[in-house]
């Protein structure tokens, strides 16, 4: 059914790889990594497709049914830069290059001492022959691990100071998903890499797993007055559900330091007592922004302020 899509995708991937990427790898003496680079071209194309899909499907929804009416969208522009950095594959490439030797060394060391970490396929007989089911199970497990990571981002003060940048957007839109401090991103990738190692995600596929829900995450951040209904809200994260996570008053405050931490599925919030399904589309942001606390207007400002506040939190000083 999707053969035409596969054929077209392969054609573009091969053309980019053979005419641009492989000659560069050859001239830089990096041919040992040529197969990874070939996969990298696919990640880049997936990212571009995600952006295209977001523009074609989600952006019109923001115009038709906005949760908030803005006089203009200038406040969302910097988030587009974050999105392009993340979904072009540039940041994932940097994180991957940084982390691969680390995870490889750890896995190799464990094996040298006789321990081969089990794959999910080792625990569930026959799963090897059902790759789609296997993929979905991995997706659910990764999402559960992401819920734990997100809870810690809000709970640990030094981590929150990095993560606050993501929450500081008061014009939350389809571009906000990737608005993150770079160190926060690197730590998150390290988290994914460790979980992937533990459950046996193929190195080349874990990026695909992480990327799989990205279009849902774009929709979840969109400035859209949209709820999935009583049942739907409990099946998958909606723009309404996630807006409450970003809302002043509920998103980063209270007993659990926020609510609705789930990335793709709200199930973990329901199990963990952090789900909030109350109606309404409240304004987004961080409460102290109302009293003038600044999270940066430029890319460098935002990065620097996050790092400084996080460092001060580690030292036990006031931000």
């Amino acid at each position, binding site marked *: 059914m999707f053969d035409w899509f596969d054929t077209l995708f*392969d054609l573009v*991937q*091969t053309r980019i*790889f*053979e005419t641009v990427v*492989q*000659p560069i790898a*050859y001239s830089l*003496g990096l*041919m*040992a990594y*040529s*197969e990874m680079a*070939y*996969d990298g071209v696919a990640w880049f194309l997936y990212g571009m497709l995600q952006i295209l899909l977001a523009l074609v499907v989600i952006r019109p929804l923001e115009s038709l049914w906005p949760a908030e009416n803005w006089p203009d969208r200038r406040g969302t522009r910097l988030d587009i830069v974050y999105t392009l950095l993340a979904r072009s594959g540039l940041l994932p490439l940097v994180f991957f290059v940084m982390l691969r030797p680390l995870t*490889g060394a750890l*896995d*190799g060391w464990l*094996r*040298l001492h006789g321990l*081969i970490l089990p*794959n999910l*396929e*080792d625990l569930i007989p026959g799963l*090897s*022959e*059902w*790759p789609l089911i296997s993929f979905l199970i991995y997706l659910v497990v990764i999402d559960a691990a992401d819920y734990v990571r997100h809870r810690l981002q809000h709970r640990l003060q030094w981590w929150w100071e990095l993560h606050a940048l993501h929450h500081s957007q008061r014009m939350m839109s389809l571009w906000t998903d990737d608005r993150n401090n770079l160190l926060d991103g690197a730590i998150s990738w390290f988290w994914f890499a460790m979980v992937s190692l533990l459950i*046996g995600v*193929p*190195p*080349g*596929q874990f990026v695909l797993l992480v990327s799989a829900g990205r279009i849902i995450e774009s929709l979840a951040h969109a400035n859209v007055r949209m709820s999935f209904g009583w049942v739907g809200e409990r099946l998958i994260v909606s723009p309404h559900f996630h807006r409450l996570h970003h809302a002043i008053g509920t998103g980063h405050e209270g007993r659990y330091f926020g609510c609705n931490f789930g990335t793709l599925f709200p199930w973990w919030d329901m199990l963990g007592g952090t789900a909030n399904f109350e109606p309404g589309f409240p304004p987004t942001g961080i409460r102290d922004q109302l009293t003038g606390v600044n999270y940066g207007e430029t890319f460098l400002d935002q990065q620097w302020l996050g790092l400084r506040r996080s460092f001060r939190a580690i030292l036990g000083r006031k931000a």
Partner: protein
Amino acid sequence: MKPPLSALSLLLAALATAATASAKPEIVVVLNSGDGTISLLDKGNYREIKRFPVGKEPHHLMISPDGKDLYVANSVSNELVILDPDTGEIRRRVPKISDPYQLGFSPDRKWFVTASLRLDRVDIYKADGFQLVKRLPMPKMPSHLAFTADSSIVFVSLQDTNEIAAVDLAKQEVMWKMPSGKTPAGLYLTPDQKYLLVGVMGEDYINVIDWRAKKSVMKIHAGKGCHQFLPMGDKVHVFVSSRIDSQIDKLNFKTMKIEATYKVPGGPDCMQMTADGTELWTTSRFISKVSVVDLATGKLKKVIRVGYSPHGVYFRNHAETN
């Protein structure tokens, strides 16, 4: 009249059996490393007849020394999958084989060796029962293997440190390492055991190494991205695939001259030649296809769609690979 009828029905049954047998296609097994599947191709009709999941990142495969089983190495699943080489059906799995990227049995059938490209290890197992004997840490990215005929040494190409290592199989230790050129990949030991040929993937030549003297004696210009070898079985020629220039060269290793060059699309990798010497089959890594070269004309004969990033290829009726 009963006896003639019985004879007739026996004859008909025999004919039917023969017809069924002849209708059974000759299978080509292709490992699609990127999507973890196996494609089975009908060799006579050049078409894919089945694709099924096998595990994570199957890269290389080899026939067992007795010719009865086909071993597929699933590197990320940490296992061997044993197939029926004639039907492609899965017979059983051998677990706890750590990251087997490349695999090989020593000629004396005593050792089974795997190279772990991702985790920088060479593992030596007893071939009978796959019991791990030694796990040898290696410099970065050990990829291809070649055994000496007396089974005393296995050579390993180290892609990220641009070296060749020689491993003593009896002592299970690295004997020596030497420079090989940028990003060495495929290895081939000439039948007289004199020279080790190295496909230098980061450049455009075959490095001819006098391994006893541990020195390079010649560089034979081939395509850019020299990668894998396949002997033609005549003890004179070997094919070498080149990823970047997308070609396969036919090398006469007696004269050390390239005698023919075949253009193949999509980064040719592993190869298999038909026993009658008429066709050369190769996986085209970067276009998700298997390419078939007509060796009489030197032209591309067929291109067959398979899964993502096809790597190993095998069919039973192939030319001798020693």
